[in-house]
């Protein structure tokens, strides 16, 4: 039994009748990282939201989602909510937009930890401080008293990772965690994601446009196009011998782009070739 097993996931928009995800089946092995790649609008984020069951009311999803032997789509909302954050953690693309702009970030963090652990303020501060230090956010208490607009996107991304550290989820779903960041912040976030996985020994679903990051993190890859999985396999196989024409183009384009960057940077930051 795999940690997560998605079977025949089908998602439609009730308003327009359009199909967002067509009969998608895949699985995530215990302790491994599955990368979802594909062009914009191919349904990567829809897949993530389906697992979390966080779609809008008018989006309909069918199919089975088995997580640690439980069928998530059959769970009552109350129990599903208990799993969110605690067992299934999500890390979003735009750190800047992921926190309520009218509160200091400590508020949302505190609410989350209180919800899952029932901790006191002091306990929250102590645990969160440790986690934030471990993702190299110094002065954690000071940071938690800052508003989202006072921090950078990369810092907020690492705050989300730190929160995941504390919650110790079994599965981390990172939807383009580095896309909105500059190269250095990307590097730091990827380092912390790797550290997070190592420490939790948890599994991860990674959505990314950056095949360099995918190559570093992923064990398996699925390639999506227009709401369908067009190719799947272990990372090595996909990168060396892609079958589908679309994947070949994707890998090729990425290689060309990276070559271009390498030349520009004079072989610079080496995020890609580690």
């Amino acid at each position, binding site marked *: 039994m795999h940690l997560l097993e998605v079977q025949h996931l089908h998602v439609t928009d009730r308003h327009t009748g359009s199909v967002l995800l067509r009969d998608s089946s895949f699985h995530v092995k215990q302790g491994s990282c599955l990368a979802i790649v594909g062009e914009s609008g191919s349904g990567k984020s829809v897949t993530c939201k389906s697992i*979390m069951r966080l779609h809008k009311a*008018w989006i309909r999803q069918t199919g089975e989602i088995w997580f640690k032997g439980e069928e998530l789509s059959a769970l009552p909302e109350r129990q599903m909510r208990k*799993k969110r*954050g605690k067992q299934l953690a999500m890390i*979003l693309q735009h750190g800047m937009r*992921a926190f*309520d*702009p*009218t509160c200091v970030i400590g508020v949302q963090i505190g609410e989350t930890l209180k*919800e899952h652990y029932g901790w006191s303020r002091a306990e929250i501060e102590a645990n969160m401080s440790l986690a934030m230090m471990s993702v190299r956010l110094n002065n954690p208490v000071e940071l938690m008293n800052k508003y989202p607009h006072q921090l950078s996107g990369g810092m907020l991304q690492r705050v989300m990772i730190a929160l995941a550290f504390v919650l110790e989820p079994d599965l981390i779903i990172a939807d383009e965690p580095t896309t909105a960041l500059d190269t250095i912040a990307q590097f730091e976030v990827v380092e912390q994601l790797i550290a997070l996985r190592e420490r939790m020994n948890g599994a991860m679903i990674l959505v990314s446009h950056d095949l360099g990051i995918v190559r570093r993190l992923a064990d398996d890859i699925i390639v999506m196009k227009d709401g369908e999985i067009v190719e799947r396999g272990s990372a090595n196989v996909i990168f060396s011998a892609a079958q589908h024409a679309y994947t070949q183009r994707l890998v090729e384009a990425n290689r060309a782009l990276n070559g271009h960057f390498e030349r520009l940077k004079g072989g610079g930051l080496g995020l890609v070739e580690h």
Partner: protein
Amino acid sequence: MGSYISRRIALSIPLLAVISFLTFLLVNLSPLDPAEVVLQAQGVPMITDELLTQTKQELGLDRPFLIRYWHWALSCLQLDFGHSYVTGQPVWSQLGPAFLHTFKLTIVSAACMIFFSIVLGVICAWREGKLLDRSVRGISFFLTAIPSYWLGAMLVWLVAVKLDWLPTSGMESYRSYILPVMVLTISYASIYFRFVRSAMISNLNADYVLYARACGLPEKKVTVHLLRNSLQVAISVFCMAIPVLLGSTVVVENIFAWPGLGSLTVNAILSRDFPMIQAYVLVLAAAFVVFNALADVLQAAMNPKLRKDL
């Protein structure tokens, strides 16, 4: 925050000065001769040139415009708006109580209006596109289109005359408030709840809501965040609704014989009572300036990003 408030108040002062000047200018641009108005109001049978010059002198109208403005502005600061041309009494002795009556009506109506706007706006946003949302918006569209004098008249007829539940006019007890407040609330809540609704809907799609839910926060907590952010947008609209209400109670005051600003001003305009009109415009403009400042301060209190600017 304290410095923000003081800066915001400092900004209002020149604004008030400009407004008072424009008010004075506009009323003085009127082709009517104030001296003639006064003499007519006093019922003088034969208005001679001599009499006109003398009255002008008494009113100080022979002095240069800027000097007159200066004296008027200074005395306005002490709530001395001059004397009514018609009754000869100090303007404030009439305007003050009338303002208070209208203000009370406005505050009660604004409170009701804001309450219903928020409740309806939130409900419609949660049920976006569903039957409930569509019916509320449909009915509100219909209510917005109804003129308030008709609505008022129908309510008077139904509740006060037919059913004899409530007084039709005057302001003896809290019960006198019910009908006029109802009319104003219906007319305005049906417009203003849309602001809350659209703010809620745009916030419902925000990433922080998705993340809060993804963290397993219960809907109650998520709603608090949603409201905080949505009301931030709505709060300035609501603050500005108060001076708007202050200036638009004329119709309702007439229907319910409410002794407020509306009735007073209509009479002042009809009898060309310049000092009264000037004072009314100034008081209303001041209300706009004050509530505008209040809106900004409240918004800054809720939005940390704004506190930096200005």
